[in-house]
């Protein structure tokens, strides 16, 4: 609470110099949250931060280019801001970053599945347990088991850059071993099993493109090849093949740019584990170029440039 109050004070001080500040507030039930667009001090009363306020607010930044925007940011989401700066999609002098020390982000879908989709009436966060009340029943879930994928590979709880910082909070909800990810599961499969895996999951895809629109780095939005008639790479029939084709395009377009913020998978109303495709490509990028997206504002993403001889690809030596 003191943490939130401090954040409110920081924002209130800066607000007169800003068009708006991006933060979070509570959603339709105790497990949900929604982005809050702060323009007046009165809006600050609704501000809330915590492990259940999970949207990556940096996704709004490119569409707000040209306005002076404040943004509340945790460590992982600051990697998105770095990547957007690297790609000149936003201007640093138009963004004011309010950093928070993150303790971990809850994977809301995992929690809802754990309580069998029952309406949630109360949620309490303890040191390592999330207590979820659904009517008369109470479920105690180990926080370690219900965090977002990115928390297990967290590269830093505080943002990599900030203009204002809420006093560091200690503690991290990710304690102990990393549970296996969808990618781990997929890598244990042969090609046929893997194809069956995607065919099964894509069967329920409704082609809403929430994955694309929530992705902070998917900036073609209104001229996406998924709906283009010329080129006609994806047709509109609802077969797993066409749906998977789009996912492959999305993953390839974000290779070496994706910071694995997990918005695509979090946004998917059908719970399809599409982050795994981006993770797979990022592993290749790391292996081929020794590069991770959104870590250094001065570097150029590997697929944005051409070198005759890549340092980590010994193509000539192999001959």
């Amino acid at each position, binding site marked *: 609470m003191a943490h939130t109050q401090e954040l409110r004070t920081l924002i209130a001080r800066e607000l007169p110099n800003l068009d708006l500040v991006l933060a979070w507030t509570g959603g*339709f039930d105790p497990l*949900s949250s929604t982005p809050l667009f702060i323009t007046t001090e009165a809006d600050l009363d609704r501000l809330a931060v915590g492990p259940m306020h999970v949207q990556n607010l940096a996704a709004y930044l490119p569409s707000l280019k040209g306005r002076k925007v404040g943004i509340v940011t945790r460590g992982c989401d600051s990697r998105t801001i770095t990547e957007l700066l690297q790609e000149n999609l936003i201007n640093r002098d138009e963004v004011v970053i309010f950093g928070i020390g993150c303790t971990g982000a809850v994977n809301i879908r995992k929690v809802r599945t754990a309580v069998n989709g029952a*309406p949630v009436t109360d949620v309490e966060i303890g040191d390592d347990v999330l207590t979820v009340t659904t009517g008369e029943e109470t479920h105690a879930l180990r926080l370690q088991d219900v965090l977002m994928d990115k928390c297990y590979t967290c590269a830093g709880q505080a943002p990599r850059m900030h203009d204002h910082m809420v006093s560091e909070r200690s503690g991290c909800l990710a304690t102990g071993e990393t549970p296996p990810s969808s990618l781990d599961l997929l890598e244990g499969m042969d090609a046929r099993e893997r194809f069956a895996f995607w065919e099964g999951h894509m*069967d329920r895809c*409704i082609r*809403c493109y929430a994955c694309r629109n929530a992705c902070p780095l998917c900036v073609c*939005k209104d001229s996406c090849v998924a709906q283009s008639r010329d080129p006609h790479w994806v047709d509109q029939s*609802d077969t797993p093949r066409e749906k998977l084709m789009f996912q492959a395009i999305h993953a390839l377009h974000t290779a070496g740019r994706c910071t694995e913020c997990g918005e695509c998978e979090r*946004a998917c*109303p059908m719970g399809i584990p599409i982050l795994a495709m981006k993770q797979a490509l990022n592993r290749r990028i790391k292996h081929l170029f020794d590069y991770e997206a959104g870590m250094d504002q001065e570097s150029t993403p590997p697929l944005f440039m051409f070198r005759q001889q890549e340092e980590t690809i010994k193509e000539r030596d192999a001959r």
Partner: protein
Amino acid sequence: MSTARFLKARDIAPWLEELGREYTVLAPTRHGDTVVFREFEPERGIELDRLSTTPAKKALLPPCETLFEYATTKTDTPPYRTSIELRPTLPEGKILLFGTRPCDARAMQIFDRVYDGEQVKDPYYTARRNAATIVTLACSGQAGTCFCDRVGGSPVDATGSDVLLTPLKAGYVAEALTEKGMELMRDTAFMKADGLRQEALNVRNRILEEVPERTSFLDMERNLLSLFGDLGFWDKTAESCLSCGACTYLCPTCYCFNITDEPHGDSGKRIRTWDNCMSSQFTLEGSGHNPRPTKAHRMRNRIGHKFSYYPQLHDKTLACVGCGRCISNCPVSFDIRNAVACAIQHAAANAQEHAHD
């Protein structure tokens, strides 16, 4: 006149399996962490404990429907005439939609006015509609995102259903409401249960008593229309929207479609697929002009259509059944209830202001 039967919970799956010989049976089943309507198969089981993630509308309006198939042939000597052969693909066969909720069933009547009205009869829709029998399960209560009571429905509403199931211990009382429903019930081996009618009614009344007293969204057509020119309001309302299609595709009442030709070499098909008014392409014209260029314009249309334009055209019936799927599945938890309530309030405030002019 009608027929009531008692369906033991454990007998439902074998019954649906048997009906599968005569009908295409669609029922809610688990798919990953979600629940979707799809063709019933015993090994998939059936999930009746919670509202399905996807609505039942695909039974009447499939996400992708082939309107016709075509093949072109060219003569191989001059003057190389091209001829085209069309093969219509009208839907055939009976459909049983089992386990819809009252909101989903009510939505079917919203489609009827559009696709099976006096002016226009869509042959694909009407073929499916006439062949469909809808068995609805009354809800035992409302979830946090439910608001059927605010849009003219209720957790036990039978509008649009052929059979209504009321949950009792260990099973359901099934009451036929239409000719189609009676036909379905007459041919079953389930126990006759006319004696349980009163008990079922009592259960439904108890469920209704639990529904809270809340403001209604009915009769707001004019108020909402008065906000049409207030783009500032819609800008504010839509600010967090990502312009994806989760809300429209999971909406049981959204019925807009796109038509495309999908060629493969010399042959192909013309398909009709769900379309989404939150996408900028929805109104993009051939000239490049877009009458709804921002998400504010599109949000105004989505809310306006459901709560103002449709009810003005169709006897004040809202094009929203209050299932709450658009709220619970939105990536940014956009709450249409707040948006409509805000709009009504805002319109009233504007009216007040003008009264003083």
